[in-house]
């Protein structure tokens, strides 16, 4: 506490908090030398081997394998693969299809983040204020989590149908003709964003809700006494306090949308006019339709790196605004 106050007088930025351990070392458990159990030297290795092997061989190794394979290229389908260095990556820089896919992905992920996080915030605030009798609504939010991406896409295909879809029925109530969703580039992208947000929202809502529930009620009470309106209390007190959870939700959301293939493939198939041809679809087409597997591996690595970069951006961003818990 003393440290904090002295630091505050010198600079407006709060002092950097000590680096958190990625995995908290459990204090009592596992560290107890006097315990009667957990002493055998060989047993823990035997017990953990199957899971380490499975994860290592089917999760970690394929990534290394992809990185390695992306340095090769076959002259023709099924031909001998030759080492080409980073040529596959360099070619991506001038590949119009790839750049277009990047462009579409930026729009898609950006749209999903803006729409999804704001919706998640609204829902989480409302759920946080819901009385005890409405507790079941929290459980209801996870329903989309149980629906597969393809099933969600099929449902939203029906919803966004221009002739009988519910969305256009509702738009017609306002006296406006609804758009032909899947024939228009912009509307198709919007439909894809809405569908993707629908499938991924539950996690974001639950995360943000979890953050809201950790807020001390006294802080909000104090703000109320000082005359802060509901809106001010939400934006000036609650939201700054849940920055960590917001950051995690954002990371998760970008992760989910950046790597989402099923929704877009089943909803629009990348069309119309390639308007929803995002990076995952580019990857799928390169690998399984054009059969350029080594080139596809380079795209895989790009996706993974993008993912890591986004995560890094959000965590540093949130640490700067995190007022500490």
């Amino acid at each position, binding site marked *: 506490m003393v440290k904090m106050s002295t630091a505050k007088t010198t600079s407006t930025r709060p002092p950097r908090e000590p680096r958190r351990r990625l995995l908290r070392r459990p204090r009592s458990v596992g560290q107890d030398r006097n315990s009667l159990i957990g002493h055998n030297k060989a047993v823990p290795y035997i017990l*953990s081997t199957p899971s380490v092997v499975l994860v290592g061989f089917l999760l970690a190794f394929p990534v290394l394998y992809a990185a390695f394979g992306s340095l090769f290229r076959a002259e023709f389908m099924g031909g001998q693969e030759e080492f080409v260095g980073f040529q596959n990556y360099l070619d991506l820089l001038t590949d119009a299809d790839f750049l277009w896919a990047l462009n579409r992905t930026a729009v898609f992920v950006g749209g999903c983040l803006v729409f999804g996080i704001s919706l998640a915030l609204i829902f989480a605030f*409302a*759920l946080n204020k819901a009385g005890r009798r409405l507790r079941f609504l929290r459980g*209801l939010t996870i329903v989309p989590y149980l629906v597969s991406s*393809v099933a969600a896409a*099929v449902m939203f295909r029906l919803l966004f149908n221009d002739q009988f879809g519910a969305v256009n029925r509702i738009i017609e109530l306002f006296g406006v003709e609804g758009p032909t969703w899947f024939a228009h580039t912009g509307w198709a992208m919007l439909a894809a964003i809405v569908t993707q947000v629908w499938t991924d929202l539950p996690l974001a809502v639950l*995360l943000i809700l979890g953050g809201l529930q950790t807020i001390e009620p006294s802080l909000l009470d104090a703000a109320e006494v000082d005359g802060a309106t509901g809106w001010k209390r939400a934006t000036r007190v609650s939201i700054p306090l849940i920055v960590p959870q917001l950051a995690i939700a954002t990371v998760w959301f970008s992760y989910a949308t950046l790597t989402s293939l099923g929704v877009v493939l089943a909803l629009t198939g990348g069309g119309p006019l390639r308007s929803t041809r995002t990076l995952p679809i580019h990857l799928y087409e390169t690998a399984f339709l054009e059969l350029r597997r080594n080139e596809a*591996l380079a795209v895989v690595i790009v996706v993974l790196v993008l993912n890591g970069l986004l995560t890094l951006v959000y965590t540093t961003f949130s640490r700067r605004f995190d007022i500490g818990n």
Partner: protein
Amino acid sequence: MTVQPDKDASASGRGQAWKRRGWKPWLLHYLKRVPVWIPLIALVVWTVGPILMTLSISAKIPAEVYSAPSLIPANPTLAAYQEILNREGFRGAFMNSLIVGIGTAALTLTVAVPAAYAFARFRFRGRHLLLLFTLLPRLIPSLGLMVPLYRLAVAFGALDRRTTLVLVFTSQILPLAVWLLVGFIQQIPRELEEAANVDGTNMFKRIRYIVLPLAFPALITIGVLAFREAWNEFNLVLALTRTPGNRTLPYELWLLQDSVGFANNPAMAAFAILTLIPFIFVYLRIERYIVGGITAGSSR
């Protein structure tokens, strides 16, 4: 958006809060809560609306979808379900999904429980490194694994097999499963096991009669999450299966879009609804566990 933080919503109870500010009429109280009600109604419509609309379309005949786009069908019919259930592709894929799903859940539990027990109860060299190694790959998306796993499967002759799918799905869910279980087992008092140990119970019996019963909620959560992973995964099925007999439901549903034609919307809707069946049965029992599980799993 203007959510009114309302002290009445807290655990103190509505009645007492009214007494405290007794002069306020209750109507005003409810009006004040309108900003909370509207998003909640929106939440229900947003979540359940698409499923209800699909359910409604699935109970119509194809022509009726266009002519009478009301939510409640005039003459509800199960014809679309009959059509889907009679499709060879659906039944095969359903059985496949079921087998792969149950297999994944079973394998995940058998592999994750010993590992989590080791990480939670033993101190051993490399514990943290191994734990990190098991947990970090959670960040690897299945999209990124499509191509490398396809190539590996070709190399090992493991393409197009249910066993491959089970192994791959298990590895996908394992990091989360181990993570959840380690936390759960650490919360079980060590003393219980020590007491049993004094009484001469060996480790396997301690796990069987002390740890597993106490970790039961976590086991259910993990089982369901693993089943869901296998049931809903699309990317890897797309990459690792080829013949109709080995596909799971999402792939089959994706193919159906082309094969039944766009006119047969009820069939599509019925298929989508049928993919939800296992969750409909267990939803009420597991909802609480899942909410806890996915929140804990993603917030680390």
